[in-house]
């Protein structure tokens, strides 16, 4: 991999602290010039190309593959099948830890879902491998496919999401509903959705003796490395994974899935480096998705519009062979102060690839249902939706009773509503029109996402030439880790960002934890913070213990690291540069490691969440039913903002995703075959530029002393929540038609004239 040359905005834009500065992304120029090396851009000498053949059926067995025909095709080198493959060290069906999901890596002829890998063709060219895969002409014994939310007998899974209880109770929901003046009872449906990162899953795998070199986009370098190590029975230090850039991940590249494992197996089989890249349609199966949900919300409110009960039940699906349950109902735990809350889940098994984390798993699906239901409840109470939300504002986390570590949601409501002009909204739907006669509607939703932390380590170095280094195996999925984490590193090392060599994206660096849960900046940032403090402490020891240093004896008073110098805290005239300290000590550099981890005591004491308020305007053609979002304002409070420029970009992305959730995205599954009928970006609709209105993001000031040392809450996912409901509610306000199945379709709005 070539040396990365990251660039920053001119230094004059920054004054002192790097954190808080709106630096443009430092890898931006590389990307614009096509010089950022993504996994599939690697071509080691002797590279062969592997193409996966996938199952046409959703359930059954492969009874034959015409391996001979494939092998006869010019350029085809090998065909890997369940009968001809390198052995694995352990059965991939064994779940060695909760973050291991079962995968299809040619261990049997069984077919569990459509688009499951059933063979791999390895050839000298991509074209030859592709044709070889076609020539396999698989035959099947087909069994009936389980499809849809009513596919079979439902059951209550042991947990949902990552270890969340399936059911939660607060107070007496039945009594709360019985005592209510107004009630709603509504069912909302959300479709299966696929991550569809621009960059498909890809791997270049190269066995070098007993060493394994991997280029692969991953959101979890160490989790992936550990999984590869156990599957192939090799030591961790024999594996090197490089993942400097991801063309999006959204949760689908967090854990090792089957296809990259097949790439490693293929490389082993042929003894040469192998590249395996999924085709777009092959991403609709073996690499996770967001499961569909059917959610029933029953809400009661008293005569003043105070909630008396909130009952949120979610039905979802998992695969026939593994367990992941979209924790949709959990969205009702944190936002609204009902004295009685019940959340519950059940599921059916269907012939699908196992669902997985997809950007705001549970929060996104749960939010559009909850925010729609709250909107319906406000209307039933005759109240403005914002006034209704304020009336039911949660001063403590409703489900636990814990105080919030910080919660600037009121400010989000205020600032967002003011910017949007919410006060002019008509209470009644279908009252507003523009000059062209289009129906105009305004809707809102509350955004929330937990402030999570994982574990990470970083290594910091200060060098005699006055430069520094920070090493951490962090992941840049496009969100800006190369920039934001380097900003934190610069501050922690007391150096200008250009003097810090920031290394990330490689498994030979300290473990940065997984880039997920909107927790990467907080987690990696905390480790960088600790490592920086530790290396500065070492440097300070060198100075304050050396009688030749102007800082001698400052041990108790302490020193401040700034601009490449240590300065006595109580006497700014006494300072010394890092270089001078190290030169006199006769060392080339000092290094130290530091870790970041959640604080269990604080988590026990406080509920930790980011919040926000999203306001949307839509226009709807009154006769034709086509919808266009024309304005969105989102105000978010997410603790400390490391880089306002990148944070705004993340929130834009989330809000667009929310719009997409409400109006566009849906994987269409054939109800008979279980095959996905729109597995391409022409037919699986996401918004195009003309669908995205001017987006206005306000980051609301919020100081959180409890979440972590840096006060960071994370912004990767919260933008979806609130936004999807705001758009849906705006459609209701425009038309008077409440659509409870998403995405909202044209035909849903043709019922009235």
């Amino acid at each position: 991999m070539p040396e990365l040359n990251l660039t920053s905005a001119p230094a004059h834009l920054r004054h002192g602290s790097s954190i808080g500065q709106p630096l443009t992304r430092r890898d931006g120029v590389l990307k614009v010039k096509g010089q950022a090396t993504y996994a599939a851009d690697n071509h080691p000498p002797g590279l062969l190309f592997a193409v996966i053949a996938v199952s046409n059926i959703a359930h059954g067995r492969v009874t034959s593959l015409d391996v001979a025909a494939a092998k006869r095709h010019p350029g085809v080198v090998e065909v890997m099948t369940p009968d001809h493959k390198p052995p694995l060290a352990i059965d991939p069906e064994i779940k060695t830890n909760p973050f291991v999901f079962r995968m299809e890596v040619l261990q049997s002829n069984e077919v569990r879902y459509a688009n499951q890998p059933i063979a791999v063709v390895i050839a000298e060219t991509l074209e030859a491998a592709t044709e070889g895969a076609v020539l396999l002409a698989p035959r099947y014994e087909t069994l009936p496919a389980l499809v849809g939310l009513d596919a079979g007998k439902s059951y209550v899974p042991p947990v949902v999401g990552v270890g969340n209880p399936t059911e939660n109770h607060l107070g007496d929901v039945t009594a709360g509903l019985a005592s209510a003046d107004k009630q709603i009872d509504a069912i909302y449906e959300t479709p299966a959705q696929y991550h569809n990162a621009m960059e498909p899953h890809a791997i270049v795998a190269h066995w070098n003796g007993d060493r394994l070199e991997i280029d692969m986009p991953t959101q979890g370098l160490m989790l992936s490395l550990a999984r590869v190590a156990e599957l192939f029975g090799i030591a961790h230090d024999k594996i090197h994974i490089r993942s400097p850039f991801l063309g999006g991940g959204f949760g689908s590249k967090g854990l090792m899935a089957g296809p990259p494992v097949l790439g490693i197996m293929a490389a082993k089989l042929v003894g040469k480096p192998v590249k395996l890249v999924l085709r777009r349609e092959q991403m609709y199966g073996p690499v996770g998705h967001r499961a569909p949900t059917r959610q029933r919300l029953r809400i009661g409110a008293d005569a003043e519009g105070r909630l008396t009960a909130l009952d949120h039940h979610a039905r979802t699906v998992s695969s026939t062979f593994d367990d992941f349950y979209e924790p949709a109902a959990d969205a009702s735990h944190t936002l609204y102060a009902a004295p009685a809350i019940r959340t519950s889940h059940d599921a059916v098994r269907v012939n699908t690839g196992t669902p997985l984390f997809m950007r705001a798993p549970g929060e996104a699906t749960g939010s559009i249902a909850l925010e729609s239901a709250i909107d319906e409840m406000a209307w039933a109470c005759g109240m403005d939706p914002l006034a209704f939300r304020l009336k039911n504002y949660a001063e403590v986390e409703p489900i636990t009773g814990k105080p919030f570590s910080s919660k600037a949601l009121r400010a989000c409501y205020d600032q967002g509503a003011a910017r949007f002009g919410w006060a002019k909204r008509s209470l009644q739907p279908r009252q507003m029109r523009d000059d062209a006669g289009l129906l105009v509607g305004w809707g809102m939703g509350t955004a929330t996402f937990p402030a999570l932390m994982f574990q990470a380590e970083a290594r910091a170095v200060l060098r005699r030439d006055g430069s520094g280094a920070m090493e951490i195996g962090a992941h840049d999925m496009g969100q800006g880790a190369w920039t934001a984490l380097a900003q934190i590193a610069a501050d922690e090392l007391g150096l200008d960002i250009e003097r810090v060599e920031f290394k990330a994206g490689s498994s030979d660096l300290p473990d940065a934890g997984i880039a997920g849960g909107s927790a990467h900046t907080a987690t990696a940032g905390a480790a960088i913070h600790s490592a920086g403090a530790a290396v500065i402490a070492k440097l300070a020891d060198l100075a304050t213990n050396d009688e030749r240093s102007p800082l001698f004896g400052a041990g108790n008073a302490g020193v401040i690291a700034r601009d490449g110098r240590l300065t006595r805290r109580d006497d700014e005239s006494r300072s010394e540069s890092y270089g001078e300290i190290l030169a006199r000590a006769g060392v080339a550099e000092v290094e130290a490691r530091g870790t970041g981890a959640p604080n269990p005591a604080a988590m026990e004491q406080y509920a930790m969440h980011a919040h926000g308020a999203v306001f949307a305007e839509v226009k709807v053609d009154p006769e034709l039913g086509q919808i266009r979002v024309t304005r969105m304002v989102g105000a978010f409070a997410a603790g400390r903002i490391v880089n306002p420029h990148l944070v705004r970009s993340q929130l834009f992305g989330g809000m667009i995703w929310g719009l997409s959730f409400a109006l566009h995205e849906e994987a269409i599954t054939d109800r008979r075959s279980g095959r996905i009928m729109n597995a391409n970006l022409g037919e699986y609709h996401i918004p195009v530029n003309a669908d995205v209105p001017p987006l206005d993001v306000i980051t609301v000031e919020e100081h959180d002393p409890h979440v972590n040392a840096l006060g960071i809450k994370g912004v990767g996912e919260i933008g979806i929540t609130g936004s999807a409901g705001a758009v849906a509610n705006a459609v209701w306000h425009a038309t008077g038609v409440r659509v409870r199945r998403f995405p909202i379709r044209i035909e849903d709005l043709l019922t009235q004239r």
Partner: protein
Amino acid sequence: MKQFDYVRPATVAEAVAAAAQPGATYLAAGTNLLDLMKGNISRPDRLVDVTHLDGLDQIERLADGSLRIGALVSNADLAHDAEFAKTYPAVAEALLSGASAQLRNAATVGGNLLQRTRCAYFYDTASRCNKREAGSGCDARGGENRTHAVLGWSESCIATHPSDFCVPLLALDAIVEIEGRNGRREIALDELHRLPGHTPERETVLEPGDLILAVRLPPAARGFAAHARYLKVRERMSYAFAIVSAAAALRIEDGKVAEARLALGGVAAKPWRARAAEDVLRGVAPTADAFQEAAWRALADAKPSGDNSYKIELARRIVVRALTLAAAGTPARIPALPASPFASTSGAIHA
């Protein structure tokens, strides 16, 4: 991919000879064909690349007032030809409402006419499709079919023709010039595409080797410039095929409709001319009632082929709207959102 021969003929005659062989197919921009080949829906043995043939990329005004558009003129070049857009505004609007800017830059006039359906079951080689494999059955019937045909479909096939361009061309009585093994001939565009019947695999009347050389708009097509619109309802603002679309063109004299032209897209296996609707508008005032009547006539024979009965009502409403917009007059400029119900939104609201 399947290996295939690639032929680049020097003349039209050579092209026709090369393409008349079994397993051969013409390649122009390939915006549809290459996707079909990547997906193994089409597995030609031979591609006959016509993009280097001389003389097929001209837009010519003929002495009789016709316009002759070469088959290799790109969709973008045609739409952005100022004289063309002024004279045939609904055609330009339709072109600009299709695909994406990148695709329009590549896609050709001839290729647009011959693009294949977007029925998901046609593209999914694991599904039965009479169009892809004659006699295999139709999995779209009883499948996920909310965007499928409501006119002219058969039990064998409920697919739709996806072109926007063809819809106003059909309304304007476009003529297709074809070179074949037996020389040159011309047919009305309305005769080019076939309804499925029992042979949905035969999508056009073209014979092996037939090459579309040009599309001609007759002199009368110029008479609608003042009152011609294309309207397209789709599931996002751009880069989506029509759920239903309509081209409406009126010649208004003395406050009455002297002549009306109406065609629908996204409703049948071919662009759909609504002559019965045209007939009821002749000689009447362009009123909402008249347009409603026309809409009922246009969809009189429509019936759902699946979960798509809404398309019939939607089509009626689109007909009324398209006629209303046409009656109001062609805008001086093609809207920033061509053919969109949101075309009237002033300016581009996105940054």
